[in-house]
């Protein structure tokens, strides 16, 4: 998968490395601010109430 992405990034090694970094940051941000807040309540770590 990663080698496929690397092959399809345009430009030389420098440009590929930069774009790869941008991709990593974008995916991280998506996970941190969109995905995790939505799936978190499915996990038991955050229960603080008695019920």
């Amino acid at each position, binding site marked *: *998968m990663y080698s496929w992405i690397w092959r399809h990034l345009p430009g030389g090694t420098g440009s590929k490395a930069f774009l790869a970094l941008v991709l990593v940051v974008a995916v991280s941000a998506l*996970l*941190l601010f969109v995905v*995790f807040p939505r799936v978190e309540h499915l996990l038991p*770590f955050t229960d*603080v109430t*008695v019920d």
Partner: protein
Amino acid sequence: MSRAGDLVRTGLRGIGQLLLTVGFVLLLFVVYELYVTDILAGQAQDELTDELRDEWDGAGSGATPAPLTPEAGEPFAFLHIPGLGDGWNRAVVEGTGTEELEQGPGHYVDTALPGQQGNFAVAGHRVGRGSPFLDLDQLRPGDPVIVETVDAWYVYRVLGDPATGEFGSAPVPGQQIVSPDDVSVISPTPLAAPEVPPSGAYLTLTTCHPKYSAKQRLIVHAVLEGGPILRADAPDGPPALQEG
């Protein structure tokens, strides 16, 4: 090399990349729980605080505190606990659902309101989401837990013997660790059956225990000291606010 060898190599590389990816996502989730939720909860608390202060600004006060009518999901009081840190305070919202607790400590709907006979019960996160109750286990008997409402202050004291530091046991201990399904801790009289009428004005804080786990609940019980202190009489709060 043979075609079969290529397939094995591709397969192994795929598994390797998958494991790396899973590891990265899990690490990122830890970062999210420990840091990002703090940032989000901090912003939510700032907004709630501004909202409450605006709402309360200029609100008159009579000879006795007006009855509170909190709306679900809305802030209605501040909790001040000097024992959790200098100037520690949080806006308390009505309700203990995920969305309420994301913003700050939440009041168990249907339990008593500040100053009332019964049990004013509040849940808060231990780790993450601003970690409001991270150090709840550090509270000692006699430590003040102060509730600020639109027109009054209520000083509660953690139960137990301040001289020996023992939390005691009867009838209501200052601190206990219970299983998550033990709802008797938020009964009108803590530890009694829910239908038993209140025997005093209590305050109960619940959070998870041990840290980073949801296996048990850490419970702190306090009892009201004296009556309400009108805001008009103490604009900067009761002296107990300076303890800690």
